């Protein structure tokens, strides 16, 4: 048989058959439509959600971070000499952490010391959190300078009396808009404002509050300023040390080495914890994967249900078409040709059903994401998966009716009334 021509003929014939029997074809394609819509919709809803949370993490400066945070140590009775000798998390931990063998993977470090102080300007007088920051804190937390300048390494090294304000803090303390170069009193320390951070804003859903509002309240000074001038702490204790490790594979080795280093520095006391942001993200992602599996499963169930309907409709329609099959056999169509005709029809129907399913699925996920206020994102893989699943099930469920049609005796098929 002349192959390409024959295929085109079969395709044309299948199309005629589908067009002439719209009701029956619709019933047959219904399962495929729902299955494809469900797989596609599920994927794109959870993907939209995931992309939204990834956008948040990108705004806070990436997820490839390892935080070291102090924890409460539970003392039993009187503190021992070891307890008393422990200085807690401090600048040395950050510096030495950056020097261990596996620290090659670290490409940025930030330190932070929080303090509470009375902050006064010409216009305002408030009790505020003051962030003593150091090293790559600004970049690693996604802050950008809007006015003035960033801290220099000299500022950090000397604990210079300078401050950079978040947009909210800037508008509270300097409502006139003249900010850079002005003076503030932080506690008892006079500092000069050298810059303002760009306003940070992110709303998870439209109309919701800005979840980054607190970040605009920042009042940043060098951490050494907090330690030395405000708290008189010669050990430069810290509230948070963060290492950026872009290579997630190196993260595990580095955190192991860091743990043993910090444990040794802290007199073998477990008074800190490591918080791997990447790992936390992965846990959240795996939740998304669960939804994907659920939607995929419901899609598969729809396809199986639809496939069963398909088999029944095909078998019923076969009764109408027995004579036609008989005629074709009489004029020389071999069984495999009849088989191919039925399979072509089923697969064409599956493809048309998939296309309709795409439309339904896109509308469905658009409505859902719109209603929860997340921008819609369509994953190309979901189209592939949905079509693939539909084709596999379409193929499997078409086999039986097609085989049955092709195995008829031409004699009986011709006699069939």
């Amino acid at each position: 048989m002349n192959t390409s021509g024959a295929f085109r003929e079969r395709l044309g014939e299948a199309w005629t058959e589908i067009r002439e029997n719209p009701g029956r074809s619709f019933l047959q394609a219904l399962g495929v439509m729902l299955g494809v819509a469900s797989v596609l919709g599920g994927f794109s809803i959870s993907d939209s959600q995931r992309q939204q949370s990834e956008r948040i993490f990108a705004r806070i400066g990436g997820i490839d971070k390892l935080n070291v945070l102090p924890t409460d140590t539970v003392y039993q009775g009187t503190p021992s000499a070891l307890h008393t000798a422990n200085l807690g998390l401090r600048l040395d931990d950050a510096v030495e952490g950056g020097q261990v063998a596996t620290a090659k993977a670290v490409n940025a470090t930030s330190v932070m010391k929080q303090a509470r102080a009375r902050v006064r300007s010409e216009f305002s007088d408030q009790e505020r959190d003051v962030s003593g920051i150091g090293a790559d804190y600004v970049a690693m937390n996604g802050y950008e300078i809007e006015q003035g300048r960033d801290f220099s390494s000299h500022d950090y090294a000397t604990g210079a009396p300078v401050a950079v304000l978040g947009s909210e803090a800037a508008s509270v303390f300097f409502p006139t808009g003249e900010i850079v170069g002005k003076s503030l009193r932080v506690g008892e320390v006079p500092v000069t404002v050298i810059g303002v951070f760009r306003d940070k804003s992110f709303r998870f859903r439209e109309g919701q509050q800005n979840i980054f509002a607190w970040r605009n309240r920042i009042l940043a000074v060098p951490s050494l300023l907090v330690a030395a001038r405000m708290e008189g702490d010669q050990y430069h204790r810290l509230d948070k040390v963060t290492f950026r490790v872009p290579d997630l594979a190196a993260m595990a080795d580095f955190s192991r080495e860091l743990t043993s280093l910090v444990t040794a520095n802290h007199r073998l006391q477990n008074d800190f914890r490591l918080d791997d942001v990447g790992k936390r993200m992965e846990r959240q992602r795996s939740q998304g994967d669960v939804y994907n599996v659920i939607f995929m499963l419901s899609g598969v169930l729809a396809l199986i249900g639809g496939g069963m309907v398909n088999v029944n409709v095909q078998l019923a329609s076969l009764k109408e078409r027995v004579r036609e099959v008989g005629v074709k056999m009489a004029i020389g169509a071999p069984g495999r040709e009849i088989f191919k005709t039925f399979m072509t029809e089923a697969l064409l129907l599956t493809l048309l059903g998939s296309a309709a399913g795409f439309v339904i699925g896109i509308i469905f996920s658009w409505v859902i994401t719109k209603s929860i206020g997340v921008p819609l994102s369509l994953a190309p893989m979901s189209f592939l998966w949905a079509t693939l699943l539909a084709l596999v099930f379409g193929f499997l469920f078409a086999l039986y009716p097609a085989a049955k049609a092709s195995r008829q005796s031409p004699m009986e098929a011709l006699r069939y009334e």
Partner: protein
Amino acid sequence: MKIIETRGLTKVYGSNGNAVHALRGIDLDVESGEFVALIGPSGSGKSTLMAILGCLDTPSGGGYALDGRQVEKLSGSDLAALRNEKIGFVFQQYNLLPKATILRNVELPMLYAGVPRKERRQRALELLEQVGIPQKANTLPGELSGGQRQRVAIARALANRPALLLADEPTGALDSKTGQEVLALFRELHTQGNTVVLVTHDPAIAATAERRVELYDGLILHDFMEKAA
């Protein structure tokens, strides 16, 4: 040259107690270019014989050679190929595909034979011209009269230049005038050298053929040849 050669052909339906012997031993030879009418009352076995001659069914016993090929041992797909190549069927109910155009109906046997598209189309148009309805190529069978449909069926039967044209009550569904026209077409095809076997229960129609084979109870009762004029 013999187109049909059967020896001791038998066909039994059912088994043991309620077996029906439709054919009890048919010896029939048909030469190339003959016009034969198979005649007999219902139940005489003529439909069964026609099915076996048409390779739609296989005999229970005996031998059958079609155009020199022994067919009783062939598989289903070999039989399909043989039907496609050697036999043109014309049925009482026309049996055209209702959703395909006239042209496509005529092209279909050539499609199964793997004839290229262009050649297929050209031959189909020629055949429609030959049976006298060249202007209806793109209509559906439902729009034609019975006589026209039977002409299309004959064109389809001729598509692959078959060795044997097998017609089963081809005028059964037509009025007598149209029936006569269709019979005239068969006679014309016969004079052009086609081998025609016509199955009928009507002696008047059988009289069209130059040779009449009368079946009764699964056996050949008479085999009557008219003198060539």
